[in-house]
């Protein structure tokens, strides 16, 4: 039997493991869980209102993956398919976030109101090394700002910047065009930056 952790030609380290499970080694499903439960749980914490909802989402995702794994076509990376299932579980779990009502973000709302709002000085939070900034309260500010983002923008920025999917992969996971992903990502980032700036200004 091939080594389940070996990468295949398309760079998917999970293909062999999935093939082994689908050929009858269902006991290896635990290895898939082991590989992804932490990632999915953290994805759930960013996307759901409560840790309990995140746990439900992770469980629903793995149960659905178990149920539908035989239909996996190997044309895409397993991880992309997994997050597609997880995203669907998130959306079913909570159609509406209590934190972030659905609304459109426009580019204009992130432009400085006038020249007096324009800064030529780099704020301290943007000039400090990452480890110093992340040790402080800013990590909490950005976590809350992510939860405050309307869901359609939050999904994109979490998949792109937190989970590290490419624009193309995110487009496939969410069934959107790459252009749409880029537009949503930019607005989501500007929303987060505004939250960080506001925190700094009121500090």
């Amino acid at each position: 039997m091939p080594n389940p952790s070996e990468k295949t030609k398309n760079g998917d380290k999970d293909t062999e493991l999935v093939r082994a499970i689908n050929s009858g080694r269902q006991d290896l499903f635990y290895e898939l869980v082991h590989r992804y439960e932490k990632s999915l749980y953290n994805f759930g914490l960013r996307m759901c209102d409560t840790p309990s909802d995140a746990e439900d989402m992770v469980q629903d995702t793995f149960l659905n993956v178990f149920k539908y794994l035989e239909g996996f076509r190997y044309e895409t990376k397993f991880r992309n398919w997994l997050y597609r299932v997880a995203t669907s579980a998130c959306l079913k779990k909570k159609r509406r976030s209590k934190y972030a009502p659905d609304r459109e973000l426009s580019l204009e709302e992130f432009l400085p109101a006038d020249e007096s709002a324009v800064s030529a000085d780099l704020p301290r939070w943007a000039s400090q090394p990452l480890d110093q900034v992340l040790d402080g309260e800013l990590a909490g500010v950005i976590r809350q700002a992510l939860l405050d983002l309307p869901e359609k923008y939050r999904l994109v920025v979490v998949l792109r910047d937190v989970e590290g999917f490419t624009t193309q992969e995110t487009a496939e996971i969410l069934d959107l065009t790459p252009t749409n992903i880029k537009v949503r990502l930019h607005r989501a980032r500007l929303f987060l930056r505004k939250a960080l700036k506001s925190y700094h200004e009121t500090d």
Partner: protein
Amino acid sequence: MKQTDPHHPHENCLALFERLSEYIDRELDAPTCKEIETHIEACKPCQVCLKTLKQTVALCKHLERRQVPEAFSLKLKGAIFDLVNEKTD
């Protein structure tokens, strides 16, 4: 972001503002990147804009990941155990 002098009109700042994420993600072609870099070099507010956005992205990329609660992990494996047994019975 503001009209600092005639060589850096506000429109250039706005055009750059719209494309900053694509620039950070290296999704623009070489001439567009060059254009942006030339502008940024001479426009202090746009330098600040770029650096603050870059830091925002970096913060997202390095957010701490929590451990899965042990009780939940056991519950999840129990649910899968039931499914595996159901299928092999």
